[in-house]
Structure formats: structure tokens, C-alpha cells
């Protein structure tokens, strides 16, 4: 079984139970959800759900087919030609060198977004593997808290 990682983008009717239908389908059929984001699509009655998942080709194909069967699902896009971005917020103690933290954030196309009395918050939005590297690199500045968002993706 060759596991692949895929981002599946699902366009759904904007109704209250639709997320539970999608998430329930994943849970009930034993599919894996790595990250999940939902937001309304501007100027429409629809929302986009982006799910990063892992599975062999047959599983991925089953996921898209089963999703397509849900009544409020308009469209399921699944392929590897997606531009993906993920966001992370990291809270550092101000006992750590602020300039070094800023350099690190900038190296990952991010910045410092907030500085308080005893902490600062760095933000990075980048590809998921780069986010992983950023989190690893920021470990030396003893982060207090790390909040990672889900993947958003768009077709190339």
C-alpha cells in the first residue's frame, strides 16, 4: 500500500449540518483527516472545505466518490496540482532575542505580529512542509505556545 498525501477541496451548500456530514463520512469509513478548514466562498451560498488526508490511491479515490454522493456537495477537487498554504502562530517569551526571532520569521515569509510585556507572537504562512521546518527551527527560542491552522488550497 503506497500512502500518498492529498488535499481534497470540497465545495458544499452553506448549511448547518454539512460539516458533520463530511467529517462523519471520514470517521465512519475510517478515512484519516490531517487538517481541516472551512470558510464561506465570497458572494455565494456555498462554502469550501479543505481537507488534508493520507491514504493509498484506492482510498483517495473512494473518498472523492463517497463525498460526491453527499447531497449538499457540489464539487470535489482532488489532485496534486494544488497550491497549498498553511498558517502558524507561535508565542515566544521576550527573554529570547527578539531580533533573532524576527529573522527566523522572515526567512519563512512571516513576521512578528504582536509584542506584549513579556511575550511576542510570530506568524508564518507557507507550504505545510515549510511550516514544519519553521516549527522545528523555532524550538531553540523556547516557544510558549504553537497554534497551527489547517491547509487551504487552490488549483494551479
Amino acid at each position, binding site marked *: 500500500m503506497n500512502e500518498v498525501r492529498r488535499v481534497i477541496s470540497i465545495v*458544499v*451548500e452553506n448549511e448547518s*449540518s454539512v460539516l*458533520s*456530514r463530511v467529517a*462523519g463520512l471520514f470517521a*465512519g469509513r475510517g478515512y484519516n483527516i490531517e487538517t481541516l478548514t472551512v470558510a464561506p466562498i465570497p458572494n455565494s451560498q456555498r462554502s469550501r472545505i479543505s481537507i488534508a488526508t493520507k491514504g493509498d490511491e*484506492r482510498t483517495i*479515490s*473512494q473518498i472523492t*466518490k*463517497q463525498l*460526491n*454522493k453527499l*447531497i*449538499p*456537495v*457540489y464539487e470535489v477537487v482532488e489532485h496534486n496540482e494544488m497550491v497549498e498554504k498553511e498558517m502558524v502562530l507561535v508565542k515566544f517569551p521576550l527573554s529570547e532575542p527578539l531580533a533573532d526571532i524576527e529573522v527566523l520569521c522572515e526567512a519563512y515569509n512571516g513576521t512578528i505580529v504582536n509584542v506584549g510585556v513579556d511575550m511576542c507572537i510570530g506568524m508564518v504562512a507557507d507550504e505545510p512542509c515549510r511550516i514544519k521546518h519553521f516549527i522545528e527551527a523555532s524550538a531553540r527560542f523556547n516557544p510558549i505556545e504553537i497554534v497551527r491552522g489547517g491547509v487551504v488550497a487552490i488549483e494551479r
Partner: protein
Amino acid sequence: MQMNGAQMVCEALVAEGVKTVFGYPGGAIMNVYDAIYKQDGFEHILNRHEQASVHAADGYARASGEVGVAMVTSGPGFTNAVTGLATAYMDSIPLVVISGQVPQILLGTDGFQEIDAIGISRPCTKHNYLVRDIAELPRILKEAFHIARTGRPGPVLVDIPKDITAEMGEFVYPESVDLPSYMTTPKVESSAIESAVEAILKAKKPLIYIGGGAVLSNASEAIRAFVELSQIPAVETLMALGVMGAENPLRLGMLGMHGNYASNMAMSETDLIISLGARFDDRVTGKLSEFAQYAKVIHVDIDPANISKLVAVDYPIVGDVKEAVEMLVNGLRGKVQTKQYDDWREILARYDALYPQSFEDSDEIIKPQWVIERLGETLGEEAIVTSDVGQHQMWAAQHYPFDRPRQWINSGGLGTMGFGLPAALGAKKAFPNKTVINVTGDGSILMNVQELVTASEYKIPVINVILNNHFLGMVRQWQTFFYEERYSETDLTFQPNFKALAEACHGIGYDVTTKEEFDMALKDAIEQDKVAFINIQVARFENVLPMVPANAALNNMMLPKIANPAKGEK
């Protein structure tokens, strides 16, 4: 026209042509029952348990092909209905189930008899609705029926809070539905048919594999024409019995865990499976990695998700079975040589002669298989046969000569004990002039036995043939074979007096220990026109054979002792 939500429900049911509703009232659905009291557009049957209401609607749907309708209250009324929904969902049966819900002001407060019906039923319905606005109600009811009956059919739940059924609103029943996100039935692509036709012409050992989808799509005639033209042999799943007709010379029989020898050998040796509305269920395939190892696969299915779900498909055809088969027939006409598969049919005929579907009869004790064959001889094509789940179900499937689709009604996918009697009530309501037999066991029948009362009250005279072996027979059989005869909790020696039980519910009961008594009881039960129990003491340790042990290869069958090698030699 102005009316309240409860009246809208009734009006919508009438507009959908519903003649019979099966249900059970309660607090949250009372407004609708008040409206039912005031109308005469449809009949309401009061079952004695909500599970039975849904099974009855299901039996009605399977027998007639129409959408079955059940109505229940919130909370326990709904949860009792869940097994019925799941049963229908697994076999793709079109149902609309209407459930009451607590008033919207109480939603989410753990109100009396409140339960999240939408959440619970999501995995066992094709779709479900919680109505939040009276203005949506007509549209939702219209969509519910549309979704239930189109595409791959299935049950739809409409959960209606009590304040909505009381509220007044304007009722205009929509003439059409506007559901852009819902795909019904994809059109069969002619290029897919062309490739399939080529594969059929090239094949040496093709096999038609027919599933329940053929019944749902009313494809029986088309399939019989396909078989007639091509002379390709065919096997049926449990859900497809009757599609080919028992007497069809090209019908090998049922395949799978309790399929006959020739059918399972055919599936193991075929070089081209032509799957028509079947889904390669584990009870059919046996061990998947050794399933049909020499075969290419043509798979006709209305549901794209079934294609290559379990078995890799070489020639996918997405769409309605009937339409696809008619196109295959057109493509093959004039091209297929009827002699083309002579050798293959000859091999299969030998297999069938070697181990025909058979059993060893006895003069001392009634064999359950004898009862089924006797029923078949006596009633044949006329009767509708329902069943519960277990040994009796498999014997009925193996030994009753089903001649037409929708004649055989059973819970295949979910395997629901307690399905048979209420489903029989539904089938009898759909076809009051047909004899309806429920073949059941001493275990299953007790799981919805309260429906004897429903049957008596509404004069729905179904005949329950209880193959009584004082065991949960199928589990006992597995314990014999695979658990060293440790009969853990399967001995049903302690049981009610079935004859008296039937009589207590205003029906008629018969205790049968000989073949003569059975003949007399059956004849009398048909004449009496009352709900009946025919309680038959059958051989206790009889096994359902052939049997493919769980997760063994399909050609690895346990066979009955009385094989006939002399016939096989020819």
C-alpha cells in the same frame, strides 16, 4: 392554500400517491396524527413497534417498487426506527420516514424525548432533513421523495419539530425539484458499452453476475433477453433471486457463502465477470485476494463509488442497469455466436451435476429444506416470500423456485433479524391478493412478534412458517464448525408455545411434526385467511451447505455428503 405543517405533511403524501403509511404516534408527532385523523387520502397502519413500521414500509417498497412511508415520534420513537432505516439503507430501498422532533425552542436542551435524529441517522440514510422553517416544508418533502426514489435509491428521514407542524403557512407543493448538487443517474456512455461488447466477444468463459440493483432498476426482462441472446451463463446474489427465473436453463444459481457448487466454481474460473447491479459484497467474494483470479471485470453500477471499491474493474459502466443491458444487447446482436461459449457451459453443467443443490431427506424428521421445496411446489410463482435472517433465510434462498423479481424479500446487507413479519405485512398491503409467506426461525420471529397483533387488527393474513430447531441455527452452525461445538447462548430449547401465542394475538397456530401435518396446516392457513404461525419441528442439527468459511476462497466449499460423482462423469 393556508394550512398547518401537519396538514402539509398529509397533503404532500397524497400528492406523492402514497396509499399506506405505517407508523406509531407520540408526543412530538401528535399534530400530524391529528391531521391524519381528519383526512382520508391514505390509510394508516398502527404497528406495535416503530422498528416494525419502518420494516413494513420497507417490505411495501420492495414488493411494489414504490416509496414506502413510515411515521414515528421523536426520541425513542425515532431510535426504534433506526434499525429499519439501516436495513433499507444497506439494500438501497426507497423510503421516506417522517419523525417528530421537540419544538425548536427546546432543541439542544435535552428536552423530553429529544434526541439528535439527524446526527444518529446520517450514516444510515441517503439523506436527512431537520425542518427549521414552515416555508421550507413543502420543498423538503418533495425533495425527500425525489432523493429516495431516484439514482441509487435509499431511505430519507425528515425530522419535523412540533412547532413546525402546528404553524400555519402557505402550501404549494412544488412540481419539480431544484437540487443542483444532487446527481441522479448518469447516462450510460456508449464508448464504455463498446469496450464491454468487445471484451464479451473475446471472452471464452464469461459469467453474468446479477445483484439487487437489477431488481431495483426493473431490469429483469432486459437481462433475460441478454442471456437468451448471448447464451452466457448467469449467477445471482441473494438480493437478485427471481431476476433470471428458477427454470432458466442458463441460471446456475446463487453464489457466495451459501451459493451452490456450480455458481461458486463458475465465479472462480470465469475469465470475464459481467457484473449487473452487484457490489462484490464479502459474503459473495469470499477471500478477496483469491477471488476470480482469472477474470477481467465489467461492472455496471449506478453508484460510481461501487466501481473498484473492492475488486479492480477493467470496464466500468456507470448508470442504470436496465439501460446498460439494453445497450449491451444492441451491441452484441448479430455479433455474438451462441456456440461461442458451448465448452464453458459444458464444464459448468458437469459441475452442477457433480454437486447439485441438494439435501438428504428423511422420513423420520422434517428437514427444513423439504419445507421450502414443498412451499415452492405448492405456491410457486404466486406467493411473495419474505424471510428473517439465519439458516431459514439461506434455505429459502437455495430451495424456493423464485420466478420473478420482487417475489423474494429479505434483509441482505444488514442482516436484520425481526425483518420478516413486518416486511410481510408491508408486502401484503401492496399485494392483498397474493399469498405472503414469511419463512422464519424460532429465534428471529420473536424479534418483532408483536406484529401478530397488527396483522390481526388490520386483517393482513400473512403466514409465518417457523423452521423451529430450538437453536439460533446459523450461529449454532458456526459454533459446530469453528468453535468446537461450544454452543454458547444459542440453545433456544426454552421457548413459548407458538401456537398459543398466535391464538393469543387473534391469529391461528399449527404445531407440525410430520410432512402430512405441514401440508394440512398450509392448506388450512391459506383458507382461514388469518395471520398464522405454522410451527414446524425440524431436524435440529441440519447445516446450511455448501458453505464457504469466512474469509476462505470462494471455491473452498464445505459440501453436502451426498455428492453424485456418477452423474458428474456423464
